[in-house]
C-alpha cells in the first residue's frame, strides 16, 4: 500500500463518476453511480484493513503544494477513518434508495450525490485548515440542489433555510481560521491541534467555530433548518443529511474546538450542556406530537446529536468514545429509519402516520427491519445505540450528574416516541385499505436494509472493532484536555476492594480484576 495515494483515489473515483453521470442517460447514470460508490466502498475497506491500529497518529498522508495560500494535504487518524467508513458505507445505499423513486434528471441527481461523497471524504481527510473549509463548505452546493430540485412541496423554503443558516455559521469560522493561521504561522491541522492559543483569544475563536458547528450538529435553538430540510429532501438526501452531514459538526468539535481551544471548551462546557439538555427534552417532546414520520425522525436526530455534544464536552475518555459511537450509530440508525420511511413513502406517497397501520400483517419483513432500527434508536442493549448512549452518559456522569440525569430522560422519551410511532405504523388493525395492499420489501430494499442491520448489530455486540482504531487518538485528545478538564461533581472515591466478593467461590478474583480494567476504556 506504500505510496498509493488511496485517499485521493477515493475522491477521484466518485468525482469521475459524477462527471460521467452528468453526461449519461437515466439508467446508465444509476449504474455508474452504483459502480462508483461500490468501488469507493471497496477502497474504504482496503483503507480500513491497512490502517495500523496503534501506528502513527496520522496515516496515509499526502501533501502537494498546488495552491497559493494553502496546501493539498490529506491524512487520517482513527476518528476520521471511522467517519469516512460511515460515509462510503451509506453512499451505495443512498444510490439504491433513489433507484426507482427519482425519475427526473437522474444524471444530475446521481452526479450531485457522487460530488457530495467526494466532499465528505475530503472534509474528514483534510489536513490543512483551509482545505478543510473548502470541502466543508462546498457541500452546500450539492445539498442545496438535492433539496431544491428533487425535494417535496415546500422544498424551496427548506433549501434557502438550509443554505443561509449553514453559510452564516461557516463564514464566522473562516474569519477565526484566518486569525489562527496568522497567529500560528501554519495552516497544518496536526500542528494547530498542539498549538497553544492564548486563553483570551480562545474564547472568541471557540465561539466562531461554535457558530458553524452548532448549526451543523445542529444544537437547539439553531436546529430549525433540520426538520424542514429533512422533510423536503428526497429519501436518500435525508439519509446523507442525517447519516453524514450532521457528523461534520461533531467531527468539527472533536477535531477543532476541543484540541485547539481546550480552555475555552472547558469554559463554555456549561453552554453546551445547557443547550444539549434543552435539546434532549424539548425535541423529544416535539417528536412525540409529530404526525409526519420524517419530521419525527428529524427531531429525534436533534435529540441524539445532543447526546453526542454532551459526551464530547464530558472531557473524559468514556464521553469522547461514546460520542463517537453515538455518531456512527446514529448515522446508521437514523439513515436506516429514513430508508424505512422511504420504503412506504414510495408505495403510498404520504408521510402521514395515520395513513398507515397494521403493516406488520402485510409487510412482515419490513416490520422486522423497522423494529430493529426502532430498538436501535431507543438504545436497546445488543444494538449500536446502547453502546454509544451508555458510554456517553457514563462519561457525563463523571462530570455532572445533573446533566446525566436530564439527558437520560431523553432515552425514556426516545422510547416513548419511537415505540408510539412503531405501534401506529406497524401494529394495530389495517385501517387503510391502500396501506393494507402494499407489497412487502423488494430485493433491492432487502439489499439496502440488510447491511445496515448487520452493521447495527455488529456495533452493538462487538463495538471493539470500531473503538480500537480510535482508542489511541481519543487517548491523545484526552491527555490534551486533561489540564483544562473541569472538576466533575461525581466524587468517585475508589473503595478498598473486599478480600472476597460476596458470592465468591475463591477463584473468581482474577476475573473481577479483568472486567474492572475493561470498564475503564
Amino acid at each position, binding site marked *: 500500500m506504500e505510496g498509493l495515494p488511496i485517499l485521493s483515489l477515493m475522491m477521484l473515483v466518485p468525482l469521475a463518476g459524477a462527471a460521467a453521470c452528468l453526461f449519461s442517460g437515466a439508467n446508465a447514470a444509476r449504474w455508474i453511480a452504483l459502480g462508483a460508490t461500490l468501488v469507493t466502498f471497496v477502497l474504504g475497506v482496503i483503507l480500513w484493513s491497512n490502517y495500523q491500529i496503534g501506528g502513527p497518529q496520522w496515516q496515509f498522508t499526502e501533501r502537494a503544494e*498546488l*495552491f497559493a495560500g494553502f496546501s493539498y494535504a490529506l491524512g487520517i487518524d482513527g476518528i476520521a477513518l471511522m467517519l469516512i467508513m460511515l460515509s462510503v458505507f451509506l453512499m451505495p445505499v443512498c444510490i439504491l434508495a433513489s433507484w426507482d423513486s427519482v425519475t427526473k434528471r437522474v444524471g444530475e441527481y446521481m452526479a450531485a450525490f457522487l460530488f457530495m461523497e467526494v466532499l465528505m471524504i475530503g472534509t474528514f481527510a483534510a489536513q490543512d485548515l483551509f482545505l478543510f473549509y*473548502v*470541502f466543508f463548505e462546498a457541500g452546500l*452546493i450539492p445539498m442545496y440542489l438535492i433539496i431544491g*430540485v428533487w425535494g417535496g412541496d415546500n422544498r424551496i423554503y427548506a433549501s434557502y433555510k438550509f443554505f443561509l443558516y449553514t453559510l452564516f455559521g461557516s463564514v*464566522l469560522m473562516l474569519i477565526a481560521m*484566518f486569525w489562527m*493561521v496568522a497567529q500560528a504561522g501554519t495552516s497544518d491541522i496536526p500542528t494547530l491541534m498542539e498549538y497553544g492559543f492564548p486563553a483570551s483569544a480562545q474564547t472568541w475563536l471557540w465561539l466562531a467555530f461554535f457558530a458553524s458547528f452548532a448549526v451543523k450538529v445542529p444544537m437547539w435553538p439553531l436546529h430549525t433548518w433540520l426538520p424542514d430540510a429533512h422533510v423536503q429532501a428526497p429519501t436518500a438526501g435525508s439519509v446523507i443529511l442525517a447519516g453524514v452531514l450532521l457528523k461534520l459538526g461533531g467531527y468539527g468539535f472533536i477535531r477543532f474546538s476541543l484540541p485547539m481551544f481546550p480552555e475555552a471548551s472547558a469554559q463554555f462546557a456549561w453552554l453546551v450542556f445547557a443547550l444539549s439538555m434543552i435539546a434532549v427534552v424539548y425535541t423529544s417532546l416535539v417528536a412525540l406530537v409529530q404526525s409526519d414520520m420524517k419530521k419525527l425522525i428529524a427531531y429525534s436526530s436533534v435529540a441524539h446529536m445532543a447526546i453526542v455534544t454532551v459526551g464530547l464536552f464530558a472531557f473524559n475518555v468514556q464521553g469522547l468514545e461514546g460520542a463517537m459511537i453515538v455518531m456512527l450509530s446514529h448515522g446508521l440508525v437514523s439513515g436506516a429509519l429514513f430508508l424505512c420511511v422511504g420504503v412506504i413513502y414510495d408505495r403510498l406517497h404520504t408521510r402521514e402516520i395515520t395513513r398507515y397501520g397494521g403493516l406488520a400483517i402485510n409487510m412482515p419483513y419490513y416490520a422486522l427491519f423497522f423494529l430493529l432500527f426502532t430498538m436501535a434508536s431507543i438504545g436497546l442493549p445488543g444494538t449500536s445505540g446502547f453502546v454509544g448512549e451508555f458510554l456517553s452518559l457514563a462519561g457525563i456522569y463523571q462530570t455532572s450528574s445533573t446533566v446525566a440525569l436530564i439527558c437520560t430522560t431523553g432515552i425514556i422519551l426516545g422510547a416513548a416516541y419511537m415505540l408510539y410511532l412503531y405501534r401506529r405504523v406497524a401494529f394495530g388493525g389495517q385501517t387503510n385499505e391502500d396501506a393494507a395492499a402494499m407489497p412487502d420489501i423488494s430485493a433491492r430494499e432487502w439489499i439496502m436494509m440488510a447491511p445496515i442491520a448487520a452493521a447495527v448489530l455488529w456495533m452493538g455486540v462487538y463495538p471493539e472493532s470500531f473503538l480500537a482504531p480510535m482508542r489511541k487518538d481519543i487517548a491523545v485528545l484526552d491527555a490534551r484536555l486533561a489540564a483544562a478538564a473541569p472538576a466533575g461533581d461525581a466524587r468517585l472515591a475508589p473503595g478498598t476492594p473486599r478480600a472476597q466478593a460476596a458470592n465468591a467461590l475463591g477463584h473468581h478474583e482474577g476475573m473481577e480484576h479483568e472486567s474492572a480494567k475493561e470498564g475503564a476504556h
Partner: protein
Amino acid sequence: MDFAASFALVLPELVLTATGLVLLLVAAWGGDKTARPIAILAASALFASGLLLVPGLHNGTDGPATLAFGGLLKIDSFALFAKALIYLSAIGALMIAPAFFASPSAGTERGMRAEYPVLVLFACLGMSIMVSANDFMSLYLGLELNSLSAYVLAAILRRDTRSGEAGLKYFVLGALASGILLYGISLLYGFTGGTSFAAVRAGLTGEMGTGALFGVIFVLSGLAFKISAVPFHMWTPDVYEGAPTPVTAFFATAPKVAAVALTARVVFEVFGGQVAAWQQIVMFMALASIVFGALGAIGQENLKRLLAFSSINNVGFILLGLAVANADGASAMLVYLFIYVAMSLGCFVALLMLRDEEGALFETFADIRGLSVTRPAIAWALLLFMFSLAGIPPLLGFYAKFVIFQATIEANLVVFGAIAIAASVIGAFYYIKFVKVMFFDEPAGVVTGKSETGHWVLLALTALIISPLGYLLTPSLTDLAGKAAASLFLAV
C-alpha cells in the same frame, strides 16, 4: 530621460492610438459594413498591446526606469497588471458584440456600428493612461478619454430610448463626478503646490489642514463615483440596465479595473502618508457597498440590474483590500479583480446567449425559469458563476474572498472583517435565487434560439477559470499580483 525611452515605455498605448486612428478613418469611409473587420483588427491590436506587456509583467518592473515623459506616467508592474486585465476584458467585450448588434432586438438594421470597436479602443487607451498616471493631469486626461468614449458607448443604440437614457444619465452623473474630482485636485494643488503625485505626497506630510483634507475627500468621492461605490453608486443600476448588454459587460469589467487601480494608486502613492485620513472613509465605503449592493439586489427582477447591484457588492470587497492599506491588501485586491472580471464576463456572456427565436434577449427572472431543462449547459455555467459570486468553495470566487479576508485579518482588522463577511451572507441570498429560478422552477416554455461559437468559447473559458481547476492558476496569479502590489509600495 530622452523621448525615445519614454516612447518605448508607452509602446502599447502607441499601438492602440495608431490603430484607433486608422480604424476610425476606415470606419468613416467604409461605413458599418466594415464593422466586423474593424472589430477583429481592434481585438488584434489589443492582443498585440497585451503581448507587449508580458516581459515586464513576468520580470516585474519598478523604480525610476518606469517613469515616462518627465514623470507624467509611470509604467510599473502595477500598471502592467491592470493593463493586461483591461485589454483582456476589452477583447472579451469585442468578441461578444457583433452577434448582439446583428440581432433584430438591438434595433439596428445594419448590425454593429463601425464606431463601436473604435470607441472601445479609445476607452482602453484612456484606461491605460489612467492606470499608469503619475500626475493628476495625466490622471484626468486618461479618465476623461475613457469616460467620453463610455458615454457614447452607453448610448450607441440610437433608436432605443433606454440606451439613450442610460447614456444621458451616465454623462450627467459622470460629468458631476469629474467636476468633484477636479475640484478635489484643485484643492490639493492649492494646498500642496503641485500636481504630480510625488509633489502632492510631499505636501501632505505632517499635520493635515482642513483644506487639504477636503481635497482628499473630494478626490476620493470622485473616484468612488467611477468605481460605483456606495454612496456614489446610484447611476450604476440604470446605466447597466439601459446600456446594450455587450456594453454593460464592458462597463462591468475594464473600466472598473481601471478605476479601482487608479484609486489604489492615488490612495497609496499620493495619500500613502496619511492613511488615517482615508482609511475610515474607504472602510465605510466598503461596508456600505457590501450591504447596499446585497440589499438592493434582493428585490430586482431584471437580471442586468441585479448584476449591477452585484458589481456594487463586489466593489465593496475590493475596497476591503484597499482599506487594509498594505501590500498584502493591494495584492489581494488585484487577485480579486482578476477573478471578478472572469465572473462578470462569464455572467454577461451567458445572458447574451439567452435569446428566443426572434433573437430578443432574456432580461428578467421570469424568462429564465427552468433554464436547466431548456438550456442545461448555460444553466450550469450560470450556476457556477452565481455560487462563485456568492463565494462558495470550491469555486474560484471563494479564493477571491479568501485572499481579501486573509489580508484583512492579518492586518488585525478582525471586527471589520467579521462584519463584512457576515454581510456577504446577505449577498448569497440573491445569488442562490438565481440558481433557484433556473433549477427549481418549472420551465417557462419559451423556445430558445441558437448561440454563436464565439460566445460558447468565452463562456467555456470563463467557466473553466472559475471552476475548481482555476485554483491551479492561483500560484502564478498571486505571484504577479504580489509583484504589482510591491511596485505600488516601492514608491513610498
